[in-house]
């Protein structure tokens, strides 16, 4: 099961709804291309909704970090929304939970950019 993404706008914030697996290969590439495309179009407030992401490996974790730093380096901000338990646990043990701004509901995620 590969990764799928859809994007939508909410109050000037781009929500990226991701589903499937973020792993070495296609899943990581899809995430990378999506974030770079958004940044190139000037979208600098990005929320990655990972509610439907059921699996992520170390390459996928690396892509999340890359998305975060790429966005930040371009003057933007990227936040994570609705982590599944598996993804949450992975971010905890890798200490990345302290790096990312992780939100539990979309409204507060959108509001947090203002």
């Amino acid at each position: 099961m590969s990764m799928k993404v859809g994007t939508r706008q909410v109050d000037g914030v781009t929500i990226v709804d991701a589903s499937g697996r973020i792993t070495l290969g296609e899943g990581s590439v899809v995430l990378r291309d999506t974030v770079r495309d958004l940044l190139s179009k000037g979208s600098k407030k990005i929320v990655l909704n990972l509610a439907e992401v059921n699996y992520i490996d170390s390459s996928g974790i690396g892509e999340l970090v890359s998305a975060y730093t790429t966005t930040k380096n371009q003057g933007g901000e990227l936040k994570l929304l609705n982590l599944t338990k598996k993804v949450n646990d992975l971010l905890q043990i890798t200490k990345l939970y302290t790096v990312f701004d992780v939100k539990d509901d979309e409204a507060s995620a959108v509001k947090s950019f203002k």
Partner: protein
Amino acid sequence: MAMTEQRVSYTLDSSLETIDRAEENATRIATELGFADDEIMQISMAVREGAVNAVLHGNAYAPDKKVTIAFEKTGGDLIITIRDQGPGMDLSKIPNPLAPENLLKTSGRGIFLMRSFMDTVEIRPSQTGTELKLIKHVHGPTAGGKEASQ
């Protein structure tokens, strides 16, 4: 294919498909052996990370190099051995991914994850490349059902 015997082994190409197949086999075998759901996920992810290392960092996708993956149940342990035909790795040069200066690196977490999820992780040079051994203790339901997630 079923692990009715005590050992199954696969020799696979250095491809992304090998990584997915290794993970699928790990999930199936861990399920057959009665591991808890959390442990199955841990074993599957550790095997995936080991296969990634073998295919990507060891064999570098070389079409003439193979990856061998063996699953073995001995006593109270599930032992998974992954061998590649690459140049080997210097463990002393693998940085700690939890160090503040490394937190934002985009790679270097595979071995750390394997060590987090398995009871024992051994990495050593083999005759043809690198040999990775992953060991998880089997906790049967009659052993109190204690999970080994930590």
